[in-house]
């Protein structure tokens, strides 16, 4: 069964009056129930844009996004809940309140919020930090709180926008193995954006590779490794083979882009 279907998506916007920038085009993909899809591509390829369209945060210029059979025109966190790259916890609320924030927004009752939030916080292993403030937690822990906030909505799909992007290598590894446990237990579909080859393969049932801007899908790769997975998977020959393939694809894309000034970009 298909949870999420993207048909012929194109997003363009005006940077300056009269100047049009096509972020991505001709994007069609499906996410099956319980499937884990990762989207990888060079930076600036519009992969986050695609994810934002999937969650209804951004209206497509062309094409459409279907959830179940219905067109997505605005966010519905009960269907698809977001986990943002920069966690985006509310610094003025404690951890428990942050986990319950989505439910609060949805207008749930106080007892329901408290119960579900505590449950999900325990689930991500941070029950003891319920009354701490976000700034007292490490980046990795904050990201787990953001995941708990999304899970509290009991969505059918989790949309994760480079969830490990802001973390250092060490935290990524630990969070990675924690997250593997968490996400596998939830049995939900996940769409995860990343620019890390290892992450893209490690998590995925299916990898979607995007080209440089304007982003299009250039390849889909299935990863058949059994679950639950752990870090030892990275030493398997199949993993290495996919990694080489991805490296070539992305590398090719980077090279195709116009040469950039050394100190440019960010």
């Amino acid at each position, binding site marked *: 069964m298909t949870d999420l279907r993207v048909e012929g998506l194109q997003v363009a*916007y005006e940077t300056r009056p009269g100047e049009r920038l096509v*972020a991505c085009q001709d994007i069609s993909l499906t996410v099956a129930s319980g499937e884990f899809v990762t989207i990888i591509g060079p*930076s*600036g390829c*519009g992969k*986050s*844009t695609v994810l934002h369209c999937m969650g209804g945060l*951004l209206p497509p210029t062309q094409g459409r996004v279907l959830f179940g059979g219905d067109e997505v025109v605005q966010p519905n966190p009960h269907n698809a809940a977001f986990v943002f790259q920069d966690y985006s916890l509310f610094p003025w609320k404690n951890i428990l309140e942050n986990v319950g924030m989505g439910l609060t927004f949805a207008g749930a009752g106080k007892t329901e919020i408290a119960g579900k939030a505590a449950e999900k916080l325990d689930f991500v292993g941070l029950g003891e930090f319920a009354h701490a403030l976000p700034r007292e937690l490490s980046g990795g822990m904050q990201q787990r709180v953001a995941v708990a906030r999304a899970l509290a909505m009991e969505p059918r799909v989790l949309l994760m926008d480079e969830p490990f992007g802001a973390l250092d290598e060490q935290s990524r590894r630990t969070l990675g193995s924690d997250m593997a446990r968490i996400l596998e237990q939830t049995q939900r579909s996940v769409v995860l954006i990343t620019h890390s080859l290892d992450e893209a393969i490690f998590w995925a049932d299916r990898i979607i590779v995007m080209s440089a801007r304007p982003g299009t899908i250039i390849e889909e790769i299935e990863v058949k490794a059994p679950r639950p997975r752990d870090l030892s998977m990275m030493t398997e020959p199949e993993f290495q083979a996919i990694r080489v393939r991805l490296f070539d694809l992305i590398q090719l894309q980077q090279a195709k882009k116009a040469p950039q000034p050394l100190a440019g*970009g*960010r």
Partner: protein
Amino acid sequence: MATTESAFRARAFRARAKHSSTVWALRLLLLLIVVGAWLYGTGPGEISFLILPPLGEVFSAIGGLVTTQVFWTALGVTVFEMLVAFLLAAVVGVSLGFFLSRTPLRAQASEPLLSWGYMFPVVLLYPLFLLWVGVGIGSKIAYAATAAFFPIAYNTLRGLRSVDEKYLKVGVAFGASRLATDRHIKAGAARPMILSGLRIGVSVVMISVVLAELLGSNAGLGYELQRAASTLRLPDEYGIALLLLVVAVTLQRVLELALRPRRPGQKAPSRATEPAAQLDE
């Protein structure tokens, strides 16, 4: 590179209005409301002409004023007072800020003093300034400079104290003297904050000079305004007030442009969020 995307998203949430025609229409609307209220008041609203003179009379008063020598002399006095007071406050405030930032103890001991001075309602001292310095331009300059000194010194000190240690390390590593550190490292790194203090100082000086001239003086635009008010020359009173507004806004624009950080990468704190709003009449 993800910046284009995130910038785009930020725009989606905090769209800056770019439709300048609508903006100007809205401003025009406000102007029309004010003018309309004025016309209504002097016409059917029957507000006494001893309170609100007809708009036409005010404009002809303005036309008359700008052709008189008195007006231009008064303007000269006012602007002179403002410039001298600002220079005084800036020189003393900034150098004291540097001096106080030299050692942690000095800085810590003095910062609260400066912030208390900042909170102190200096205006209450103005009658005493009149007593001490006299009714001439001296009292305006002394009062305005005192009022502007505190925000300038305070912001300078704060700026210098928050200079990133990594820059100072470079100075130490290359054996920079104290003066060289002040000049090449601290002044550069604290520049935005110092300039922001100076911009606040500009406003405080203008506010203070006009107020002081109104409260007690024998020359300047504020004095002319006060004189027109006390002799019930209403069109002149309104006219001078409007002219003074124009002068103040122009002067503020000019000095603010002069005090804007120009180097790339040193963005001024947005005018709205700077600690500023610490201005007083």
